[in-house]
Structures are given as C-alpha cells and as structure tokens.
C-alpha cells in the first residue's frame, strides 16, 4: 500500500465539513467578552534569552566574588579560552530552550532531555581534553562540597530565570522544569570553574558536571510536583 493511498484515506475527514452548534461558539465569545482588554505580548525570544544569560552571569559572578576567583586565577589562558566560551554557548542554548519551553507553539530545536545530555557531554569533552591531573585526593569530601556549592548557586539562577519568564506559559511543565534546572546547573558550573582550584580530572568530571543533572532533576521534580498538586487541587475543589 502506497503512502498516497494512506493519505487519501486519512484526508477524508478534512474534506467533510465539521458541524459545531453556533450557540457554543457564541457562548465562548460571551465568556471572554467581559474580560477582553489589550495585553502586551511577550518580548522577542532573544531578549528573554539575554535576560537569562545576565541572570546566570550575575549569580555565578556574585558567588565567585564572595568565595574568591581562585580557580580562574589558577587556569592557564588556553583553559580560560576553551572553558568559558563553551559554558557561555551552553548557557545561551539552555536559556533559549528554557524560553521556548515557556512559550506555547515555539519550535524546539532540541528536547529538554537532549539538551541536558548534550550539555553534560560537551562539558565532559572540554574538561577531559584540558585537565591532566589524574590524582583522586579527597575525592568524596572535596567533591560533595563542590556539588553542594554548585547546586546552591543553581537554585537561585533557576528561580530567577523562572521569575523572569513568569509571564510565559509552559504547556509541558516537566520539560520546562528540566530546562530551567539545566540552565541553573550551568550557572552553578560557571561559579565552580571561577572558584574551585581543584583541577583533578576525576573531581572536575564527576562533581562539577554532576551539578547540571542534579539541578535538572530538581527542576523537573519541582515542576512535576507543582503540576500534580494543581491537577489534584482541581479535582479536590470539584
């Protein structure tokens, strides 16, 4: 059976006029009439993405300023030249996808899950290429401290990003939460790269990068819980 033949069968309803009682349409019109006021549309996507990048920069710079730019000072020029542009690119990408997730009918270039995977893989490649210290001193104690520091900075970045886009509407809140968490996690990684002087490969690959999936998972969990409560709340109030 050819695709054209399947098309022909599937397009039958399109050719059939669909009847809907005019009073239903009138009723819908009446229901919105009283609250019809001019509204200000959302700004262009790039403006919102720029806002998110600024939020990310502010959080990570403030965090590093408070804790010290020890990591940045210890890095050689090549490391600075590769790590920070890569992080800015990933933050722009995550911010842009976060914006798309908050606007219905936006074209997604990458899903939130793929964004998370791509972000982690890109960071793995960059860090594995640059760092050559294969010792594993204080792997857990130093690592958990970095993970927590990164996560503590990821939370305000995600929350502020969410506040910046609060006029948007997430048609898939879990996906939006995942994108918000990924975005915040990257802010946490920037802070760690500016601050952490521990350049051991295992430490950076495991604990610094782990901030991103941890934050993304937290974002998705918060969004899921909120959606669950809203839907359940709707049921309870019936």
């Amino acid at each position, binding site marked *: 059976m050819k695709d054209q033949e399947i098309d022909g069968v599937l397009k039958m309803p399109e050719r059939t006029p669909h009847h809907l009682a005019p009073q239903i349409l009138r009723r819908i019109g009446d229901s919105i*009439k009283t609250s019809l006021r001019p509204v200000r549309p959302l700004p262009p996507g790039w403006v919102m993405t720029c806002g998110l990048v600024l939020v990310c920069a502010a959080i990570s710079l403030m965090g590093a300023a408070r804790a010290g730019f020890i990591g940045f000072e210890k890095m050689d020029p090549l490391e600075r030249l590769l790590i920070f542009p890569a992080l800015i690119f990933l933050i722009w990408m995550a911010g842009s996808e976060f914006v798309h997730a908050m*606007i219905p*009918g936006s074209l997604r270039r990458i899903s939130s899950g793929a964004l998370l995977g791509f972000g982690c893989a890109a960071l793995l490649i960059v860090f594995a290429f640059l760092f050559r210290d294969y010792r594993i001193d204080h792997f857990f104690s130093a690592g958990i401290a970095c993970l927590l520091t990164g996560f503590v900075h990821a939370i305000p970045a995600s929350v502020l990003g969410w506040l910046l886009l609060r006029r948007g509407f997430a048609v898939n809140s879990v996906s939006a939460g995942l994108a918000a968490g990924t975005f915040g996690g990257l802010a946490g990684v920037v802070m760690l790269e500016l601050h952490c002087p521990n350049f051991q490969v295992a430490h950076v690959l495991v604990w610094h990068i782990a901030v991103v999936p941890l934050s993304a998972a937290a974002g998705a969990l918060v969004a899921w819980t909120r959606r669950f409560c809203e839907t359940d709340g709707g049921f309870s109030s019936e």
Partner: protein
Amino acid sequence: MHPDSNLEILMVRYQQGDYAAAADLIERTGPQLHRFFLAQSQSRADAEDLLQETWLRIHRVRHTYRPGEPALPWFYAIARHVRVDHYRKSIWTAAGKQQLEAMTKEVAALPREFDHSDGLDMLLAPLSESQREVIEMMKVAGMSLEEVARATSSTVGSVKQKVHRAYKKLRVTMSAAGYRTEQSEELS
C-alpha cells in the same frame, strides 16, 4: 502567502482587545479544535467542555502569542495541554490508569455518537496516542511538519519519526482491512 496568515492578523487584533477579531478567531478555530477533541474523547459533550476550557485558557495566556509566529500551532499547543490535563484528572478520578485505558479502547472500538463516523478512528486505533495525535494534526487539520512540532513542543525530527512509524503501522492495518482493494476499485 501562508493559508492561516489571517489567523496571525486576527491574533494581533485580539491582543489589542478587539472583540470582533476574537469572535472571528473562535468561529474559525472552534470547529477544528472541536474535531481535535472529538477524536479522543468519549462524547460530544466532553469535546465541547474541552473546547470551552481551551478558549478560557487561550484568553488567559493570549499575551504569550508573539506577532509574526504561526498562530495555529499556538492554538493547538494550548488545546493539547488542556486535553492532557483533562486526561490526567480522569486518570485520578476514574480509579486508576488501567480503567481509563480500557475505556479508551472501548471508545475506539465502538461506533461514535458524533458525525464523522468515517472509520478513521477505527483505522487510527492501533496507533499510540502520540502517533495518533501527530497524524490527526497533519492529515485532518492539515498542518505542516514544523507546525506539528511547534504544537507538540517537540522537534521536527521527532515528529517525522512518529509519522514514519505511524505509516508503517497503518500500512499493515489498512492492507489487512482491504483498503487497497477499495482504493483500486475506486480508481478503476
């Protein structure tokens, strides 16, 4: 010119508070969205409720439409969200998912009370929910791949894959149901 470009102009006027534009939009998208809901709901009344709920939601978030962007996927994205929300509530209210699945299967198998009894629902029954949704948007609503991707918040590649898989299943189902013969007879 895009066939739905009028929708975009109407949306901008709707955002400016023009009631005539809002009424025109309701009249133009209402039947399409109603058909979208009918395809997977139990009754006409259910579909009408969903349509009204969708329009209330559209009204509340009308500022999220950005001038210059295609309007139809924006409508469908919100309609889809309302439908998903509705089914999620149904799952929790109707004593678990299993019951709902059984109900959906029953509904798909039984002749509907509404008017587009053209066998399409029976035909699409073997498809997964996401495949059925994509096929409905593309073939029934006449949306392009990109528009469907926008409406379902997914990528064009993912939509292509769903369509490909759906066609594969449909080819088997339709061949088994003898559609080929009917088509050939019609042609001859």
